[in-house]
C-alpha cells in the first residue's frame, strides 16, 4: 500500500480535508469519505455518466479521476443544488416533466445539463440530445429528460428575466 | 481464433531453426519482461509481463516444443494465465529454404484468449496480435542478423 496523501478540496462551497490512498477514485472519495452519496457509480469505465460532477465548473467523470487530483480544485455535486424543500429550477423541471424514473442516472444527468444550459440558453431538441448523450439512462428513453431540459431552459430564462427586472 | 501467416528471414534455415528453437530468444519477442527457465528438454516455464501501451499484464505459464523435425518444423504450445485472463496457443511452424540465404517461416495455429483480455479488450486483439507477431519476427530477424554478423 502506498502512503496516504492529504487531500484538501472544496465541494459545494465547503472545504474538506481527508487522508487517502492515491488510488482512491474521486467518486469513491465523494461518496464514501465525504458521505455525499448523490453522485452514483454505474460503470467505472467512463461510459455511463452516472458519476458526472462539475470539476472547476466543467462536467467530468468522477470515476476517471483520483481524489488526489482534486487537491485545490472546486467540485460541485448534486447536493450543491437545491434542497428537498427548495428545488433548483433544473430539479423542478425534472420533477414537473417526469424526467426521473429510478433516479440513478439523474444526478449525473443534471450535472451535465447545468453547464449546458448556461452556455446554451435556448437549446433545440437535437442540441439537448447531444448534450445528454454522455449520460446513459435505461428507464426513460430520454424523452421526458429532454422535455425537462426544455422546461428548465424556460425556467432559467424566467429567472434571468426577473433578476434583470430587479424582482 | 485462427492464426496464419509467414515471414521471410534473412538467413539460412539452420540458423533460423536455432533461433526459433531457442526459447530465450523467443522470449525477447514479447514486449515486456520475461523470465523463462527450462524444466525439461522440451518444456520451459516462466513469467511474462506483456506491455502494450497502458496495459501491462503478467502471466505465468509454460512453453512446450513438440513434433520436432529439425530444421524443418515443430509445434509450439504456449499457455499462460494471470489476473487479466489466459491465453493458450498452439502453432505449427514450418521453415522453407528460399535459396541459400533466405528462409520462409510459415505458421498456422489456434489461439484461445479468455477472461478480461477478451471481454474488455476484444476489439484490440486483432491489431495488437498482428503487431506483436510482426514485431516479434522483426526482433528475431535482428537477432539472426547479429548472430550471422558475429559468425562472419
Amino acid at each position, binding site marked *: *500500500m502506498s502512503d496516504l496523501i492529504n487531500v484538501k478540496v472544496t465541494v459545494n462551497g465547503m472545504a474538506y480535508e481527508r487522508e487517502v490512498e492515491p488510488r*482512491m477514485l474521486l467518486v469513491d472519495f465523494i*461518496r*464514501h469519505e465525504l458521505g*455525499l*452519496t*448523490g453522485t*452514483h*457509480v*454505474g*460503470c*467505472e*469505465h467512463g*461510459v*455511463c455518466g*452516472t458519476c458526472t460532477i462539475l470539476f472547476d465548473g466543467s462536467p467530468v467523470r468522477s470515476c476517471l479521476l483520483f481524489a488526489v487530483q482534486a487537491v485545490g480544485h472546486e467540485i460541485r455535486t*448534486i*447536493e450543491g*443544488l437545491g*434542497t*428537498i*424543500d427548495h*428545488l433548483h429550477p433544473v*430539479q423542478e423541471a*425534472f*420533477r*414537473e416533466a*417526469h424526467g*426521473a*424514473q*429510478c*433516479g*440513478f*442516472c*439523474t*444526478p449525473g444527468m*443534471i450535472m451535465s445539463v447545468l453547464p449546458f444550459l448556461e452556455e446554451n440558453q435556448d437549446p433545440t431538441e437535437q442540441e439537448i*440530445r447531444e448534450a445528454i448523450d454522455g449520460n*446513459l439512462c*435505461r*428507464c*426513460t*428513453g*430520454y*424523452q*421526458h429528460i*429532454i422535455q425537462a431540459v426544455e422546461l428548465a431552459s424556460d425556467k432559467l430564462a424566467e429567472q434571468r428575466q426577473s433578476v434583470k427586472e430587479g424582482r | 481464433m485462427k492464426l496464419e501467416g509467414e515471414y521471410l528471414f534473412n538467413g539460412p534455415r539452420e540458423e533460423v531453426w536455432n533461433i526459433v528453437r531457442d526459447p530465450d530468444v523467443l522470449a525477447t519477442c514479447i514486449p515486456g519482461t520475461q523470465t523463462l527457465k527450462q524444466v525439461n528438454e522440451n518444456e520451459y516455464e516462466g513469467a511474462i509481463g506483456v506491455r502494450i501501451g497502458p496495459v501491462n499484464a503478467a502471466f505465468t505459464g509454460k512453453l512446450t516444443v513438440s513434433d520436432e523435425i529439425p530444421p524443418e518444423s515443430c509445434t509450439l504450445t504456449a499457455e499462460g*494465465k494471470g*489476473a487479466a485472463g*489466459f491465453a493458450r496457443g498452439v502453432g505449427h511452424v514450418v521453415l522453407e529454404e528460399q535459396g541459400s540465404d533466405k528462409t520462409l517461416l510459415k505458421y498456422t495455429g489456434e489461439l*484461445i*484468449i*479468455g*477472461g*478480461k483480455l*477478451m*471481454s*474488455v479488450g*476484444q*476489439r484490440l486483439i486483432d491489431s495488437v496480435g498482428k503487431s506483436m507477431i510482426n514485431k516479434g519476427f522483426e526482433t528475431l530477424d535482428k537477432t539472426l542478423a547479429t548472430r550471422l554478423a558475429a559468425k562472419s
Partner: protein
Amino acid sequence: METKYFGKRIQRNEDPRILTGQALFVDDVELPDMLHATFLRSDYPHARINSIDISAALARPGVIAVYTAKDMGDYWKPGPLLVPAPTAIPGVVFNKRTQVPMAREEIRHQGEPIAVVIAKSRYIAEDALADIVADLEPLDPVVDVEKALEPGSPLVYNDLGTNLASHVQQENGNYAAAAAQADVVIKAHIVIDRGIAGAMENRGLVVQWDPKSQHLTVWATTQAPIALRNGLSGILGLSESQVRVIAPFVGGGFGPKIMVFQPEEVVLTWASMKLGLPIKYIEDRQENFLAMTQERNQIHDAEIALTKDGKILGVKDVFVQDTGAFNSYALTVPLNTQTHTTGPYKVPNYYSEFRVAFTDRILVTPVRGAGRPYGVFVMERLMDLAAKKLGLDPTEIRRRNYLQPEEFPYRTGIIGQDFAKNILDSGNYPATLDKALEMIEYEQFIKEEQPKLRAQGKHVGIGVVTFTEGTGVGPYEGGRVTVEASGKVSVATGVGTQGQGHYTSFAQVVAEQLGVPVEDVRVVTGDTDQFHWGAGTFASRGATVAGNAIHAAASLVRAKILKLASKTLQVPEEDLVLENSEIHSATHPTTCIPLGELAVKANPSRGAVEPGAEPGLEATAYYGPPYGATAGGTVAMIVEVDTELMRVEIKRYVIAHDCGTVINPLIVDGQIHGGVSLGVGNSFFEKLVYDENGQLMNGTFMDYLIPRATDMPYIEIGHLSTPSPLNPLGIKGVGEAGAIPTPAAFAQAVENALADYNLEVREIPLSPNRLFELLEESKTS
C-alpha cells in the same frame, strides 16, 4: 367517473429526494465497521476445480476472510427453484438444476464465483483476488444452444446425461390438418440473440447480522424483497421475523433483480453471521456482464398456413431456448414466447414446441419483455412474409386476422407463465391499428412521401406491428392503508419499486378514496418489516395487482371513516364528503371533522371500546386476479437506411397503446418511453457475443451498447382505453409495452426501406455489420 387525483398527470412524491441526491440506494448504506466483499470469478466457462489456495490472500493486510465453497460445509447447497415447473402442461419435461452459492467441484459458466474475499475495503478485496491461486482444469464448454442438443455434445451436467433442460409441446386445434388445407404455407428460420438488462445500478447488497438482537438486516437491490426474506431465513435456519429485507431506492430492475438467492446473497448473509460484522457487496459493471442473469437466445423454425385471401389457418413454431447453466427461473421466458406468439390474431390452429438447453453460459431469467418480444417478432415476421407472398398490404393482412372487440374473453388454449390456459380478457386491436395509422399518416406516407423520397434515391420504409402484452399476473399482492393522527396517510405494500413511480400512483389511488392530497400519502414499498406478504415486481404487475389491493384497502378505510364520522358528526354516511383531509356534511359543510382528529378518535387511549372494534382507521386487503390482464397496441415506425454506410435512422415512431384505465398518464408515458428504448437497443445493438470457447467478447459499455439520447426517436403516443373487466380499477400493466413490438416493427420497416434488395431480416439485433452482410448476400443471390 369524476376524479380528483386518479388518472391525472401528477408529479411524483419521490422526486424531491431523487433530484437532490437524497434518495437512499443500497451503495449509500454506511455502517460502522462495515467490511467489503468481492468475488473471484472463473475465466473459464467450464472447468474442474482441482484446488484453490487462498493462503496468500488471507495473509494480505486488511483481508478479514476468504472463503470457498468447501468452507461452507453443509450450508452449501443448490438454491431453490424460484418458479415452479409448469406441471399443468401435459408431457412437460423439466430437469431441475439450480444455482449454487459458489462453484465447488465444477464451474459451469464464465463469471461463476469460486471464492469470496472479505476485506476492510473494496480496493484491498480486489488486491487479494490476484493472491488466490486456483488450479482449474478447463473442460469443453457447451456454447451453442443448437449444438448442445445434438448427440455427442459435451455436457453441462454429466449426471444428467443430456443438455436437455426442458421440453414442452402445446397445441390448440390441429396445425397439421390446417396446413394440409392451406393455400400457402410460409416458413422462416429466426434467430434471437442474448442481451443484458443493463440497469444503471448494478446489483448490491449490505448484510448486517446483529449477534445481540439475533437479527439480520439485508439491504438489497431486489425486485422481490419478501421472497428474498422468506428464502434467506429458510436457508439460514432463522425465523422470518429475524430477517428484515429492505429494498430502498433501486436503480432500475428490468427483470434480473427479481432473481433471488443468487450466490452473493447466500454467501454473504452466511459470512456476516459467521463474522458478526456488516458486509457490503456492490457488483461492478464487469461483474454485471459476467454474473447478472441475462435473457434470450432462441432459435425458431416457424411456419404459417393461410388461405389465399390472407386468413390465418394455423401457426407452427418450434424453437430452442438457451437457459444457461441453470434453470432456477423455470420456463417463464419460453412460456411467454409461446403465449404471445399468436398475439392479437385469431389463430384457430396453433402448434408450439420448445426445447430448452443447458449451456455453459449465464442463467437466463426474464428481462423487460421476458420472452414476449420474440414471440411477437416471429409472428410478425411470418405475417410480413405472408403479406409479401400474397401481395397484400402489411396492414391489411393484419386487419383481416385481428380478434374483434366482441370476441373477448378469448381462450387461446395455451398454458402460460401463470400455469393456466391463457385468456385474453379484453382489447380492441383494430382501434389501435387505426389510431397508429392515423398518427403516422400511413396512406399519405406510402402513396406520396415514400415514392417521392425513393425517387430521390432515399431508402425509407415503414413498419406496422400490433402486439399484446400479458400483464398483471397473480398470484396476489396486498396493501395496508393507515390514517395517522396528523391526517396524513401511510401505505405499505410488499412489492419493490425500481423507478415505476409506485410512491405516487399508489398514493393517487389512496388519495382519491380518502380525499387527501397525494403528497400527504406516504407509500412504503420493499421493506419486509412494513408489510410481509407479496410476490414482487415483475410481469408488469405492480400497478395492476398491488394497485388494486391498495385500492381495496383504501376502500375499507373509507368505509371505516364514514362509519365513525357519521357517528361522531351525527350525519348520515350518504351525506358525508371526504375532501381536503376532512370529513364534512354535504348539506351543512361547516359540520366537519379533520381526518387526523377522526383517526385519534378511532384509537382511544383510555376507556372501553365496543366488542369486536378494531383500532384506528386502518385496513389491509389483498388482491389476486383470476388471470392476467392483456394490454396491447400498435407501433408504426418509419426508418431511413443509408445503404452505403449501413446507418439506420428511425425517422418517426408512433405507438397507439391500450393499457386500460390509467392511474397517472405521466408515469404511463414514461414507462412506454423506457420500454421503447429497450426495444430500440434490441433492434440496433444488444447482443452478447461469445466466441466458440464460450468467452464473452463484449463485456463493457464500450462494446455492448445501450441506447443513448441520440439513438432514440421522438416517441409519439396515442392512448386508447379498454378497461380490464378483471379488476375494479380496470388497470392493465404497461411496463413492457414498448419493448415488445419494437424489434418486429424495426425489421419490417428496414425490409420495406430496402424493398429493391429483396432482403429478409430474420434476426435481431441488426448491426451495421450484419446489414452489410445481408445486403451483400442479396446482391449475389
